[in-house]
């Protein structure tokens, strides 16, 4: 039998720089149409949720349907405030990076609802294992921006002693795990932490975040496997922002299945959520947290969103996607949508919004002033080089004491 030759399929996005934006492949289901199952629904009865999209805010800014978490206007305004603060913080930090005050920055523009709503839906004592794009978690948990800025500047008050790349925060007091440069490693760690909590008869749960691209890493698979085997009390979030640096989500397998669907294969429940809908994100997270806390195990949440920002300050998306993709993203902007909702409720106005932005900008500037008083990268030169030998191990071993001596002696001579 003669056969047609095989061919290698290489996924490609619908549009590239110079092309018209094409989101025609994305169908946006109406808000409110999905039922909210009870938190103890067996996963095998929930498979469809991996393919649907939980949405609460409709086109006119009204909250509709079963998943509406019915938050008070105050809570909504708090959420809005955190989102705006996160955005203004990002804007300012990128400017400072451009001015050479630090080496690197990563924005979460367009994804603010995720960090903020999820932090608000979780208990403050739950442990967060984030990737590098959930600064909203820290903002919503009330971590002072100046702490983050100190880290970004590697200045004298940097709680990480100038060691880490900017934005690789570690905030034990805010239940925020040390961000790793290595994608995905935090995911099985979140599961391990949750197993430890269950082992200890605690009531705290864990939550982990990875991006769409990162789902391809081994750690994603380890996490889902361990989570399902031991019914770990953990919420496993996949932020599908359509891009992994320059690779569209089809390169991670998104052409053939949703990322939420991965969960199905492990017998875990999955929720797929409009990540730009503050209310939907909040409600889905609450559902998953409630389930975990009730000893019913893990949930995977796919947060469907769009990375409106460049990957990082080292990246220029003009090289791989049309410049106006973000603007045309069919799920809109999370800040805008929550703002419209509050306005629709009669609880907000354009004026109050402008005032909020101004207030948040001021807050950023005030904290920035303080942070800069402790220095920026290289200015003044960081003044405790000997500290680089600490924390390799609990006690500085002899070998490192000698190396420290040597380094400090060289420094003295070199100056």
């Amino acid at each position, binding site marked *: 039998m003669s056969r047609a030759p095989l061919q290698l399929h290489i996924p490609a996005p619908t549009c590239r720089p110079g092309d018209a934006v094409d989101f025609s492949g994305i169908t946006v289901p109406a808000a409110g149409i999905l039922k909210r199952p009870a938190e103890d629904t067996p996963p095998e009865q929930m498979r469809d949720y991996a393919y649907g999209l939980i949405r609460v805010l409709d086109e006119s800014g009204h909250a509709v349907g079963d998943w509406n978490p019915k938050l008070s206007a105050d809570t909504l305004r708090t959420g809005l405030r955190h989102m705006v603060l996160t955005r203004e913080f990002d804007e300012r930090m990128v400017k400072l990076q451009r001015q050479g005050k630090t080496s690197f920055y990563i924005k979460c523009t367009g994804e603010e609802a995720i960090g903020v709503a999820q932090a608000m839906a979780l208990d403050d004592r739950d*442990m967060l*294992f984030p990737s590098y794009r959930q600064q909203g978690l820290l903002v919503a948990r009330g971590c002072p921006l100046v702490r983050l800025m100190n880290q970004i500047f590697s200045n004298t008050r940097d*709680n*990480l*002693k100038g*060691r*880490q790349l900017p934005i*690789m925060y*570690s*905030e*034990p007091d805010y239940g925020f*795990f*040390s961000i*790793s*440069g*290595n994608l995905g*490693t935090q*995911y*099985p*760690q*979140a*599961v*391990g*932490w*949750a*197993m*430890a*909590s269950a*082992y*200890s008869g605690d009531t705290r749960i*864990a939550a982990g975040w990875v991006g769409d691209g990162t789902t391809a890493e*081994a*750690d994603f*698979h*380890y*996490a889902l*496997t*361990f989570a399902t*085997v031991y019914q770990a009390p953990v919420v496993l979030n996949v932020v599908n922002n359509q891009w992994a640096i320059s690779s569209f989500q089809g390169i991670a397998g998104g052409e053939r299945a949703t990322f939420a669907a991965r969960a199905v294969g492990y017998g875990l429940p999955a929720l797929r959520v409009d990540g730009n809908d503050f209310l939907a994100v909040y409600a889905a997270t609450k559902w998953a947290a409630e389930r975990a806390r009730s000893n019913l195990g893990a949930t995977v949440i796919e947060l469907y969103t769009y990375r409106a920002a460049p990957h990082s300050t080292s990246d220029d998306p003009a090289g791989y996607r049309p410049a106006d993709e973000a603007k045309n993203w069919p799920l809109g902007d999370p800040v805008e949508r929550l703002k419209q909702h509050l306005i629709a409720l009669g609880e907000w106005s354009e004026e109050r919004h402008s005032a909020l932005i101004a207030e948040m900008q001021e807050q950023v500037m005030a904290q920035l002033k303080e942070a800069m008083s402790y220095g920026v990268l290289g200015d003044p030169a960081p003044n405790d080089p000997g500290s680089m030998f*600490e*924390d*390799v*191990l*609990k006690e500085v*071993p*002899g*070998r490192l004491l000698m190396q420290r001596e040597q380094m400090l002696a060289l420094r003295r001579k070199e100056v």
Partner: protein
Amino acid sequence: MARMNMIQAINSAMDIAMERDPKVLVFGEDVGYFGGVFRATAGLQKKYGKQRCFDTPIAEGGIVGAAVGMGVYGLRPVVEIQFSDYIYPAFDQLVSEAARLRYRSAGGFTAPITVRTPCGGGIFGGQTHSQSPEAIFTHVCGLTTIMPSNPYDAKGLLLSAIEDDDPVIFFEPKRIYNGPFDGHHDRPLTPWTKHALGEVPEDYYTIELGKAKIVRPGDQVTVIAYGTMVHVCLAAAEESGIDAEVIDLRSLLPLDLDTLVASVKKTGRCVIVHEATKTCGYGAELVSLIQEHCFYHLESPIERVTGWDTPYPHAYEWDYFPSPYRVSQAIKKVMED
């Protein structure tokens, strides 16, 4: 005092650690109900319940990743990697995470985990059940690397490892689980029950990490080894007829450099022995340090006796395994030079 082989001593260490501290838990492939393919965890699940000693999916990276997360919570997980040949899937979690967590969080988070893993050849395990990958861990700052050579040390060192607040890789040379194999594979093995170091206190004790032990004092040449090779070197020393001082490192990192330097300054000659492949093996670091610290005392080049730079070949195991004869030839060589 009880008579224990190395498996029993290791089992006893975990038993005592679990008894003393509810934060200690033990898991890995086949370690739960069955008690481990080498039986190191036998009885622990029965005694402490399946929440404290359990089987895991076959995912070494997941095992270590979960252990790191548990360590962050505040537990002290002790995990088993069934063979050290299978530790590579966990390499990223060990190197990028466990080893660096304290540093990158400036002490905010730590990973007080212990990774036990059988290593070494001499059991006809072929190239994937015989490896000695210690040198890829000793290159990684933030890890402590241990390899005991007898039941007494194994128990005391393992208890120290479990209590250590940083990650420890604990290599168990499987060839000496049952007795002090000296490389004479054609002779019957002396079981640990007939060996002084098979006398192991049933109670708690620890051995400080980072202390080498002179297992045979001597004046003419210093022979440095660890794990199975300690016994091979002892045999070689006898057979060579040369008054060799044999040092058992026990702990590769931290390294007891003082003991080594004192010995080499005394003898002026040195042979370093390990089962791992030669190039960039741990022996290379030992040579470097000794030539640095004992340069003016050395009478001849330091010799390395190691596994050849090939995988461990099944049928040619005894041509690969560094034999007492090979070690004794090296001892004679450094004497002649």
